[in-house]
């Protein structure tokens, strides 16, 4: 107790002392400052270091209305003349779409791209070959230069390094002799490498005139905003189509990997681009920040080698690049000789968040990609701060950055085709202006290549953004019944189907697509329904027409039906409520599966009852109307023609399409009855389904489709969605979807 008291006394004395000090401490400076303040009173607030404070009283406004009036009123020259004048002034390095691009070429036929015919004897790199064939395979391609809005050279301009074996000589003369060159107007030139040792300038070695550049490693100084396109540097092994998926398989928590930050690459002893790489060893700690450089490059590196070379080289050999790439949270991407390096795409694919150290690099597709969501943009001048910067990044942000790398990689970078298409889509967006994609369409799933603004510029009309906008899809659907046989009796399945579907509380409208050779039946022959029934006479009678984006579809959801499908109102109701939770997928009833047939080395198709599925038949399925548009415009004519000729596989193609967009399996829901060949199989099509040729065709289709997509987009699922009380041992009266269980 005594001791305690003593402490208390001491404590209170201390408190008093502190208080006294406070008094004094405030008084002293006050007395000192007082007079001096009064001295320069007139200047208080003006000396540097004084707080800026608002000036009281009324001041003049910065502009007056009358002033503007007199300024503006019709004094300026005709805006049309002014526009024309611009195109004369702003050329070359100051080119913009407004001054160097002829929009009128695109007005007539839309955005079409012409590729010059290849000349014999011209050598062409594989990469450029891939670029050209990607364009030729795209929906933008036109073989007629008269229809074209954009022109692509067949002369390889990818590698403009004079020392490179791929370098094409006399390009200047060759280009000038092209009859359609037109000073480069509406041309796009692809380039990966420019300049050479020692300074690696961005000069291509020929006059590009008014042409746009799609160039890798382009610097912000040379980049003409909204005119050029910055593309990523890709290697000659980059696949033409399909492309590898990202390496991320798990979202591990906490998201930190073995290393925090890694780099492994050359550093240059001579020439430009070596400053940053030479300084990396300052940050290297051989623990979780592993930045390795080697001096070994070129033949005579030893001539130039510096004091650190040997040490660096030994350290360099201790680590395996792949191992580091997969096991690091962040990957450093410092500039090399040129601003861009291969490290960038490698890191992106490996879900290793790129840390950019390349001042002045206009990042790939920077016009549309918000790189802050997928990379850390560092400053070469602040190299020493990089470790603390990346350490300060919160784990939630790492998780999100990492997922975004994967999304971007798969959406825009993993094949030459994607890179080329993205380039073309960017230019198309500029040309069409008011029908272009918003930032959100480019930067969120499924990405700009799958969201076509020609369908709608409103995010809410796509199946992908409901959650992001906090809205819901329209709570009704439109049924489209595909009819191929004539109407003979009132008891025909299609009649029953029409009545059952129209009875659904969620049904807004029924569209009958009359793809039958017989003339349209009279209106009164259709059963009376409470919702409007619209009969559309198919013009082509082709099977693909069932997936046309008809203007008469007023809802977001489409229920696609074959004429012989047997469905009850309850089943439809339930499927639609399920679809509302998964608006970006196909929700259907009978399911099919694919598998890899390793004997035949090809994809196999099965309609057997299996424990999993990867497709649902679109003879009875609900999906978003947007997929009609995608099917019609996104898919190449070759696949659609194939489907139309066989009158088969349209459902497989639709499943391929939707899964390649959503990267997810379709959803199978409960169906009431199950026949041998599911619900299909009463009338005309019974023969079709039983036909072995029919089955063989579908097998062929699978493989054709997979080769066009460049990969197998289908994904398996092992579950089916049933009503919550499905077949449970509880009173049937409790159940909302009773009919599904009744046979």
């Amino acid at each position, binding site marked *: 107790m005594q001791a305690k008291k003593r402490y208390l006394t001491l404590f209170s004395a201390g*408190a*008093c002392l502190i208080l006294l000090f406070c008094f004094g401490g405030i008084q002293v400076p006050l007395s000192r400052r007082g007079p001096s303040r009064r001295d320069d009173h007139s*200047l208080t*607030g*003006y000396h*540097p*270091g004084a707080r800026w404070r608002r000036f*009281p*009283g009324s*001041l003049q406004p910065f*502009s007056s*209305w*009358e002033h*503007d*009036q007199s*300024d503006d009123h019709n*004094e300026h020259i005709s*805006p*049309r003349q002014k526009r024309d004048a611009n195109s004369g002034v702003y050329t070359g390095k100051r080119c913009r779409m*407004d001054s160097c691009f002829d929009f009128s070429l695109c007005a007539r036929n839309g955005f079409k791209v012409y590729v010059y015919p290849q000349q014999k004897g011209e050598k062409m790199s594989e990469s450029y070959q891939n670029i050209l064939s990607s364009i030729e395979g795209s929906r933008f391609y036109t073989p007629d230069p008269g229809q074209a809005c954009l022109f692509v050279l067949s002369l390889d301009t990818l590698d403009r390094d004079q020392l490179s074996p791929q370098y094409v000589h006399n390009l200047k003369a060759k280009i000038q002799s092209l009859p359609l060159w037109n000073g480069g107007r509406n041309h796009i030139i692809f380039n990966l490498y420019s300049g050479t040792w020692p300074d690696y300038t961005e000069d291509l070695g020929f006059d590009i005139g008014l042409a746009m550049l799609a160039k890798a490693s382009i610097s*912000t*100084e040379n980049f003409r905003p909204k005119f050029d396109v910055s593309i990523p540097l890709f290697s000659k092994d980059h696949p033409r189509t399909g492309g590898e998926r990202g390496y*991320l*398989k*798990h*979202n591990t*928590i906490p998201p930190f990997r073995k290393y925090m930050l890694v780099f492994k690459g050359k550093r240059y002893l001579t020439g430009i681009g070596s400053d940053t790489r030479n300084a990396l060893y300052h940050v290297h700690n051989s623990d979780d920040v592993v930045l390795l450089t080697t001096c070994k490059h070129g033949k005579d590196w030893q001539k130039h080698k510096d004091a650190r070379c040997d040490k660096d080289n030994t350290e360099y050999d201790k680590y395996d690049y792949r191992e580091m790439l997969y096991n690091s949270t962040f990957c450093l991407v410092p500039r090399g000789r040129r601003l861009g390096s291969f490290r960038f795409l490698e890191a992106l694919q490996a879900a290793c968040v790129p840390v950019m150290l390349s001042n*002045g690099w206009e990042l790939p597709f920077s016009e549309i990609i918000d790189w802050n969501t997928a990379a*850390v*943009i560092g400053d070469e001048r*602040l190299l020493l701060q990089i470790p603390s*910067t990346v350490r300060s*990044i919160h784990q939630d942000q790492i*998780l999100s950055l990492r997922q975004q790398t994967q999304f971007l990689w798969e959406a825009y970078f993993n094949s030459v085709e994607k890179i080329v298409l993205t380039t073309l889509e960017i230019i198309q967006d500029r040309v069409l*202006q*008011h029908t272009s994609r*918003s930032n*959100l369409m480019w930067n*969120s799933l499924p990405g700009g290549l799958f969201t076509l603004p020609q369908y*709608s510029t*409103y*995010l*809410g*009309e796509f199946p992908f953004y409901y959650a*992001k*906008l*906090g809205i819901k899809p329209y709570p009704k659907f439109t049924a489209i019944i595909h009819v191929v046989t004539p109407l003979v009796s009132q008891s025909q399945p299609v009649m029953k189907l029409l009545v059952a579907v129209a009875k659904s509380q969620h049904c807004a409208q029924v569209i009958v697509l009359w793809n039958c050779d017989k003339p349209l039946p009279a209106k009164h022959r259709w059963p009376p329904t409470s919702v409007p029934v619209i009969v559309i006479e198919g013009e082509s009678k082709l099977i693909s027409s069932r997936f046309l984006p008809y203007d008469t579809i007023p809802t977001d959801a489409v229920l696609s039906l074959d004429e012989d499908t047997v469905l009850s109102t309850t089943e439809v109701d339930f499927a639609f409520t*399920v679809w509302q*939770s998964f608006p970006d997928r196909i929700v259907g009833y009978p399911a099919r599966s694919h598998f890899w047939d390793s004997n035949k080395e090809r994809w196999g198709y099965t309609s057997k009852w*299996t424990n999993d599925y990867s497709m649902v038949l679109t003879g009875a399925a609900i999906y978003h109307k947007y997929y009609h548009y995608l099917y019609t415009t996104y898919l190449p004519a070759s696949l659609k023609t194939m489907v139309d000729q066989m009158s088969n596989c349209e459902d497989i193609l639709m499943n391929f399409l939707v899964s390649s967009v959503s990267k997810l399996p379709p959803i199978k*829901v409960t169906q009431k009855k199950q026949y041998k060949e599911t619900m299909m199989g009463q009338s005309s099509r019974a023969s079709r389904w039983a036909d072995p040729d029919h089955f063989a065709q579908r097998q062929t289709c699978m493989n054709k489709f997979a080769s066009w997509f460049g990969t197998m987009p289908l994904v398996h*699922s*092992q*579950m*089916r*969605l049933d*009503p*919550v009380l*499905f077949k449970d041992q509880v009173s049937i009266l*409790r159940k909302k979807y009773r009919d599904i269980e009744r046979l």
Partner: protein
Amino acid sequence: ESQTCQKRRRMTSGNHCKSSWDASVSMYATGKYSSRGPALIPRMKTKHRIYYITLFSVVLLGLIATGMFQFWPHSIESAADWSLDKRSVHDAPLVRLPVSSPIPERGDLGCRMHTCFDVYRCGYNPKNRIKVYIYPLQKFVDELGVPISSTGLSREYNDLLSAISDSDFYTDDVTRACLFIPSIDVLNQNSLRIRETAQALAMLPRWDKGMNHLLFNMLPGGPPDYNTALDVPRDRALLAGGGFSTWTYRQGYDVSIPVYSPLSADVELPERQPGPRRYFILSSQTAIHREYRAELERLKEENGEALLLLDKCSNLSQGAAAARKRCYKGQVYDYPQILQESSFCVVLRGARLGQAALSDVLQAGCVPVILADSYILPFSEVLDWKRASVVIPEEKLSEMYTILKSIPHRQVEEMQRQARWFWEAYFSSMKAIGVTTLQIINDRIYPYAARTYEQWNNPPVVKWSSVNSPLFLPLIPPRAPGFTAVVLTYDRVESLFRVITEISKVPSLAKLLVVWNNQNKSPPEESLWPKIGVPLKVVRTKENKLSNRFFPYDEIETEAVLAIDDDIIMLTSDELQFGYEVWREFPDRLVGYPGRLHLWDHEMGKWKYESEWTNEVSMVLTGAAFYHKYFNYLYTYKMPGDIKNWVDAHMNCEDIAMNFLVANITGKAPIKVTPRKKFKCPECTAIDGLSLDQTHMVERSECINKFASVFGTMPLKVVEHRADPVLYKDDFPEKLKSFPNIGSL
């Protein structure tokens, strides 16, 4: 025993389980208080109490005194302020510019942040915020005493600088500043003497070739050619300009800002609900070039009433009042009120690209139709103008009507809302404009801490209702790593061992983690535990809290977690394995067995918990549920409000809290798998406790209401489906099914 049943009661919820629930609570209560608080006060002796009171009053007095002294100097200063408030801009010190005073170079078009901006001045700071210094006001005159500017400090620039000095960016320490803002007003180039203004800039003490200096200009250029950027030579200074064209704008260096409209402050336009308006297109600008006016007239002829084409009123005298009126054929309309009557409002370029009318149009919630080729839209570096405006090339003016008609109604409504939000957030005052500009520059310097697209572009309504799932990538993780089962247990060893033995049969189990929540008793010896094929770890907790089950233990190395109670032995191996398979398809959701529902009780006017076997599901019980480990982290560190404490205090509702948390962040419903409706509690079934059942239901309902109020919304989503194996109950040989033994109710 009591603990057992209390816990079990929670699991079985609607089921029959009666035991001494109250007793268990009181047991906790006494346990808690005996070790802490209550003993302290009585032990204090009177003498000490007096002492404490004295000490307390001394400290209090001291504080008051300090407070007074703290306040006093301030009052002196504010007295000085008061006298200073009489200060006016005329008192600013006069600076005479010699004729030969140096002139800065014209702005370098090649300037970028990495070439013309000294980033070292900004340094590394944990707040990731730049420091901005404002030069004191000086009055610059030439040798003849003529001021460099006809207006001097304008009202708007005064507002702008004051707003910046009140913001977090401001510093009065010139040595710590990263960005410098001159007090020389260059908002309107017309009021400036170009050469002298440039000389004045160069005389600023820290000018240093304009490095890290920021100039605000809204009206650039002058007759006859109206340059689109400020003509004052300015070395490397950054320019926040209103009216940049693509040829003068240095992307990533300059900032494009709006032209402030004085009407923003003068006129209050209430926000209108988005929807169709009386007119479809409205043109209200007065200084439209005659060529364009002719085209607009032509459009009006074609489309009639849908267009309203206003001009200034010829019969009204000039002046401020005239600015507020517009006329059409002698009919007078109030401006800007009339803007609210139209869906789209035309904003055409004048002599300059930037038009103050844009601000008025946005304020009115009218969708701007911008016709100004090569114009860099205000703050376009961060704002997504496609969602708030329609940009049409000047050449296509004649097609305007057709283009606008093709825009879906829903989109027009969203644009109207977005337009108004842009005005409120970024246009409405000089403060908004100034702070936004600084924020944009700040984001460039600290890009890893930059504001996101959503933060910039989503209006509050959308921010509230939208979700950005943290696990947004559509990944179906491979089966191989399996899942980690986390068993929360207190002392029911026998039951625990049974659970362990049962779960160990599940093929994809990777690890078993037992969370031993009993501090008074040690877990059984290692040798007594069941022998299973996967690693088994026991972690002991410091306190008996329910939230311990959701802690993101380092021992959990898989993404998938199976939370399971120590009495859940009824789940079959197929059932669990299937649950895991479903989770793989929905890794961002809770995947559980018995489902529960929340309902709105109209009589009581509040939420109600429902455990009846309904057709709908909005929650799954976490007595056995799969979910992503991320949600453990979220539950432990990011649970809003005091929900965690509430759960620990009530020893209940941790599962409801988890359901709320996941639904709130993902916007998705949980997935109920298999027919399972309840977790049977074999020992308890004998006793039927209806009353207890009800208190339980009341408590759970209370939880829902509490959580909904903390979240500020009801995040739970109701669905009508559950997941079953593809061939569930199908007429198909059982042995060929992957999950034949899927369990019962």
